């Protein structure tokens, strides 16, 4: 990892970058190389935008906020999943070149845009949706920030659904049924949220086939999470919770 001073130096190290971009759709494709001018403080998303605006308007990609909030611009950069809007070129350029491809483990729609449906379908399958414990006529729930369960829940709430962890996970690659780190982390967050009323349903969902017990604790999710979250730790929490319930019940 380069420090900020090194990035500043490399920012002007070359006038241009050779950018290999994966072009194609679900049926196949190939790499196309573009020569992109180097600019100060340039991000990988800037590169992709430059290619679309200046070189080839048919290039397809997805982005929205450009500030690391929306989670829509993740791509494989030099074969590693990254949020491209917050990835400085200086951190990833190698010998004046960069490769950019669609996210791993998801079907490609076209070029750099992947179909996120399987990713979000699994959030629903993991019961990673809010199950309200109160209605609009009830008073506000009192949530103490220092409460042990709340601390667990708060640890994962900054997830921006970018699917970087999903793309990084070898278990997802090898097991299409596996719910993936993001969905499981959200399930863990809701399980620990005192306002969620379906702890049992969450544990049922995450202990089914392809659930938390499929995780091999490789840690790629935690390693690559751009928001420094710890999905592997959240999944470990689900493993403990489901195992405790199993032993309490004395059955599977």
């Amino acid at each position, binding site marked *: 990892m380069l420090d900020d001073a090194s990035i500043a130096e490399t920012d002007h190290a070359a006038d241009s970058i050779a950018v*290999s971009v*994966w072009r*194609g*759709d*679900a049926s*196949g*494709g*190939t*790499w196309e190389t573009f020569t992109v001018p180097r600019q100060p403080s340039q991000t990988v998303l800037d590169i992709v935008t430059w290619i679309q605006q200046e070189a080839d308007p048919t290039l397809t990609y997805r982005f929205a906020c450009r500030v690391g909030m929306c989670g829509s611009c993740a791509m*494989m950069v030099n*074969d*590693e*999943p990254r949020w491209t809007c917050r990835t400085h070129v200086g951190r990833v350029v190698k010998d004046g070149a960069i490769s950019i*491809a*669609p*996210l*791993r*483990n998801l079907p*490609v729609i076209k070029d750099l845009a992947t179909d996120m449906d399987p990713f979000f379908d699994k959030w629903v399958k993991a019961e990673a949706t809010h199950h309200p414990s109160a209605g609009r006529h009830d008073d506000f729930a009192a949530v103490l920030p220092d409460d042990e369960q709340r601390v667990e829940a708060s640890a994962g709430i900054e997830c921006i659904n970018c699917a970087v962890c999903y*793309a*990084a996970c*070898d278990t997802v*690659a090898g097991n299409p049924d596996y719910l993936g780190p993001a969905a499981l982390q959200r399930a863990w967050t809701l399980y620990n949220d005192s306002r969620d009323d379906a702890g049992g349903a969450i544990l049922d969902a995450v202990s089914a086939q392809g659930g938390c017990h499929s995780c*091999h*604790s*490789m*840690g*790629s999710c*935690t*390693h*690559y999470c751009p928001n420094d979250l*710890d999905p*592997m*730790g959240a999944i*470990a*929490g689900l*493993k*403990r919770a489901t195992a405790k319930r199993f032993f309490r019940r004395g059955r599977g």
Partner: protein
Amino acid sequence: MRGGDPNAATRRPVRGHALWYAHIIHRVSGIALALFLPLHFWVLSLALTDAARLDNFLAFTELPFVKVAEFGLVFLLALHLFGGMRLMALEWLPWRAPHKTLAAGTLAVSAFVSGVFFLQAI
């Protein structure tokens, strides 16, 4: 240039960090030990079935390169043992940040245990 199937471009493994190495070392050491164990039990069975052959084998194990191989075995065993303890700690203790430290500790303790064995063997 890679091309064709998008998976060829986008599904290349994302690896090369400490915890992934810890994972693969645990797996590979487990497989290696599983392959070794039948041989080990077969040699032990010679004590009952063919004592002379066992004595020959034990003489063979005095050779230096066999000692080195034994060191490798104990190293694998230690890796698998402490790697497994690392995993159990990770999954069963409410434990967060120092994953990498524990992974490195696994390697260090394994090297120490098998090193002590090796020094005693030679």
